[in-house]
């Protein structure tokens, strides 16, 4: 047990204990699953969504595209992302100029300017 225990200043990690907890929670999850509705059947009419009589739209149309995910997050941080967009011009000259600027800054700091 001890050679596997990774001690950190405020805690520890041990795979055996983790496995035990995994089994425990797996059991709990199984019990919850068993307590589910027994009358449920796959591939019958009861799994069809009821859209008040209208028939279901094509799945490809209602699929959530990647660019729609986290729309709100990106909308909230629009200014920040505007800055980033202006940083990321895919222009090789800017890559080199950033390098020159960082070299200047880091060297000045190391010499002790700041």
């Amino acid at each position, binding site marked *: 047990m001890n050679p596997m225990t990774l001690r950190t200043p405020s805690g520890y990690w041990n795979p055996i204990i983790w496995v035990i907890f995994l089994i425990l929670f797996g059991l709990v999850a199984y019990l919850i699953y068993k307590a589910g509705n027994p009358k449920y059947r796959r591939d019958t009419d009861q799994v069809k969504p009821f859209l008040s009589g209208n028939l279901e739209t094509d799945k490809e149309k209602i699929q959530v595209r990647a660019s729609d995910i986290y729309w709100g997050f990106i909308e909230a941080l629009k200014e920040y992302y505007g800055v980033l*967009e202006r940083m*990321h*011009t*895919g*222009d*090789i*000259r800017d890559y*080199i100029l950033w390098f*020159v600027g960082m070299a200047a800054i880091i060297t000045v700091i190391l010499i002790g300017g700041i």
Partner: protein
Amino acid sequence: MNSVLVNLPFIVVAILLAIGFYTIGFKRNLIKIIIGVEILEGAVNMFIVALGYVKGGYAPIYTQAPSGAIENMVLPTPQALTLTSIVIGVAVTALMLAFAVNIYKTYGTLDVSKVRRLRG
């Protein structure tokens, strides 16, 4: 001031490096940017060779050398390093030009402000 005069070759190297970085940073043509990289390489090679110079030194080769050569030869290591880095520079240039040919084929231009489909 005296150190400036004594170290004139090193000053020249510094100026060449600045010119090279300017060329890479502000020219639009890809070929000119490759030339800028070449200028950097030339500057660094000049710097290494200049480091090896000894006042009034002879080439470090014994074959039919002048009589005074043995006690005053220039340092051989910088010349060896320069040889290596020159060949490396040739290799890098060849590959960059090959990529430039490809880019001109597919983009139809060598203007680096247009050659940026990859960004963001």
